[in-house]
């Protein structure tokens, strides 16, 4: 599923531009560099556009498109060609598509993927090829432990987001909690990170439940949760599973009886349509909140409104901010994105105010350092939104990744 987007220049304007550049200068060396630096910037987007996680690939892509439309389809003065590939949430497919992007399309930078298992599969190949790579979705904490010089993660890590929730819960009167998570890498990653700070703060996790991926019916689990004395539940679910869990949490009369806390993906703009009123009052932590009252976010939400009726979620913001990072770094190297080493160094120097707040990279692990927001779901103007109730500023990478 290749989608060469509409930001392709015509061949004629390209040749004309290169010709003009050559004519204006007498320095042959410079002319060559300029000619090389005026073709389109090719950006490979490897994400999941089919199967259960399709929604996230599409919302990430929407963020990328919003940025490009806002900037007239150009980055650092050069036209942009987006080459979109679907990894089908399958590492093997992802590697084939990645080879195509890097070796045959010769993209200048790879953005993606969504799945941590896919990022893990990509790591060895990307390290070997040295193509600049910015992760827009995969949150496995251990990914940045690898220290791949050409890899940057412009989004959250599971640890970064789940850890502050544990601190907040233990500091806000939750004594006993249940942890329930989808039974795959990220679920275990998140459960462990929450438990770490929650128990350090004096709380106790009385029960840990790992439900099979794509569980339809949570009735057995919520009945089980009912039978414990815990005052809160901390959950990790994404997409449709998050929708079903939160709904069934309410249907079994747990809402009002227990505090509902979760990972950002469990109570997010993407899942509200599935959850309705069941989500109201739910608490979650995230690196982004659609109602953030900053000029950067207001501008982003306004731009996004031109493309969608929904409010932007974390993946849309991630796509948008990643493009901003690419743009800034490309400008810093004078548009010569072909110089991968210099371009990577420029990415590492990122220090911007994104819609989500300040973003910079850890010089050692290349993980984004950013604010984490504790959010509560409220109803506002007839629709559900997250509201920030507490901010943990500049959360970096897991200290264990730095040793």
């Amino acid at each position, binding site marked *: 599923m290749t989608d060469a987007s509409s930001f392709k220049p015509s061949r004629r304007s390209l040749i004309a531009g290169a010709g003009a550049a050559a004519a204006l200068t007498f320095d042959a060396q410079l002319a060559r560099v300029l000619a090389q630096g005026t073709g389109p910037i090719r950006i490979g987007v490897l994400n999941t556009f*089919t199967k259960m996680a399709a929604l996230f690939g599409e919302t990430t892509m929407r963020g990328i498109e919003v940025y490009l439309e806002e900037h007239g389809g150009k980055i650092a003065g050069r036209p942009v060609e987006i080459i979109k590939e679907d990894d089908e949430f399958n590492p093997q497919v992802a590697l084939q598509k990645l080879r195509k992007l890097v070796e045959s399309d010769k993209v200048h930078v790879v953005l993606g993927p969504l799945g941590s298992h896919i990022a893990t599969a990509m790591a060895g190949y990307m390290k070997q090829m040295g193509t600049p790579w910015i992760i827009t979705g995969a949150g496995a904490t251990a990914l940045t432990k690898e220290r791949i010089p050409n890899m940057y993660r412009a989004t959250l890590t599971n640890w970064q987001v789940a850890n502050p929730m544990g601190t907040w819960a233990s500091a806000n009167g939750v004594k006993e909690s249940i942890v329930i998570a989808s039974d795959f890498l990220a679920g275990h990653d998140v459960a462990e990170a929450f438990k770490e700070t929650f128990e350090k703060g004096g709380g106790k996790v009385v029960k840990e439940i790992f439900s*099979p991926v794509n569980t339809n019916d949570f009735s057995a689990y919520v009945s089980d949760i009912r039978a414990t004395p815990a005052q809160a539940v901390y959950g990790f679910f994404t997409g449709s599973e998050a*929708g079903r869990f939160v709904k069934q949490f309410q249907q079994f009369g747990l809402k009002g009886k227990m505090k509902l806390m979760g990972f950002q993906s469990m109570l997010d703009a993407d899942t509200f349509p599935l959850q309705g009123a069941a989500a109201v009052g739910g608490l979650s932590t995230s690196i982004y909140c659609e109602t953030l009252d900053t000029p950067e976010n207001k501008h982003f939400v306004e731009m996004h409104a031109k493309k969608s009726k929904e409010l932007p979620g974390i993946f849309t913001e991630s796509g948008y901010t990643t493009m901003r990072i690419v743009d800034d770094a490309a400008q810093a190297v004078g548009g010569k994105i072909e110089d991968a080493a210099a371009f990577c160094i420029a990415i590492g120097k990122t220090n911007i105010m994104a819609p989500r707040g300040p973003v910079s990279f850890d010089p050692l692990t290349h993980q984004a350092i950013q604010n984490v927001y504790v959010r509560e779901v409220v109803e506002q103007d007839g629709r559900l939104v997250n509201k920030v109730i507490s901010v943990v500023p500049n959360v970096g990478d897991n200290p264990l990744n730095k040793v």
Partner: protein
Amino acid sequence: MDLFISQTLNGLVYGALLFLLASGLSLIFGLMGVVNLAHGSFFMLGAFVGLSVAKATGSFWLAMLLAPLPVAAIALAMEVFFLRPLYKREKLDQVLLTFGFSFVFTDLVESFWGKDTFSISEPPSLEDSIEFLGGFFPSYRLAMLGFGLLAALILWLIIDRTRAGAMVRAGVDDSATAMGIGLNVPLLLTTTFTCGAALAGLAGVIAGPILGVYSGVDVEVLIPAFIVIVVGGMGSLKGAFVGSIVIGMADTFGKAYLPETAMFLTYVAMILILLARPGGLFGKV
């Protein structure tokens, strides 16, 4: 409410849902000798049509009433124009055809409704939970259970007490002989296939508030439905009923008491039953 009672209820509710799907699947298999791999797609189509009807009219009941109709029409066309010409060919060809159709339906659904996950809201009168035995149970789920039992009763009356039912039973037992004594087996097949599809479509709407509505739900419900008919015995309505309860219980209690092995437990139940009775609980051996 005692945890055991509430988990039993959960198991029965899941079983009721499985029965709506497995009964049609089982009867179709009994008559055609072919596993209909597009049966889950009928469930999915019903769910999506129900979603649109519920959105347009705001009425869940209307969605329940209308959604099975287009599904039945599609199934009818599929049986008459595509499956029937293949009856003289090998069984594998027919199975492959239904498999192909399941892809077509998935793509159709994705092009009409997209890849998002939707949810049908339960009717307002069933939104709350009922308090009894000192515990809560969602009233919608109780209604589902009641509906499943009602459907089982009606199906049993039709199959066991009516002339049409007797013809279906005869067709399942031995279609060649049935044809020999003058039964119109192709018509029987078309009718059963269409009604089974309508029932699956109805199940899709009913499951909408709980399972959600999304492309891919077809496979997720088809697999447990297969386990049900293998356990219950292919072609047997009674088997589908008992099998649904067994698998519903195994799944629920597995999740509750051995959460990490829940998926595995339904298969253990299947293996144990097949070891004791290779044809399923009520199947022909």
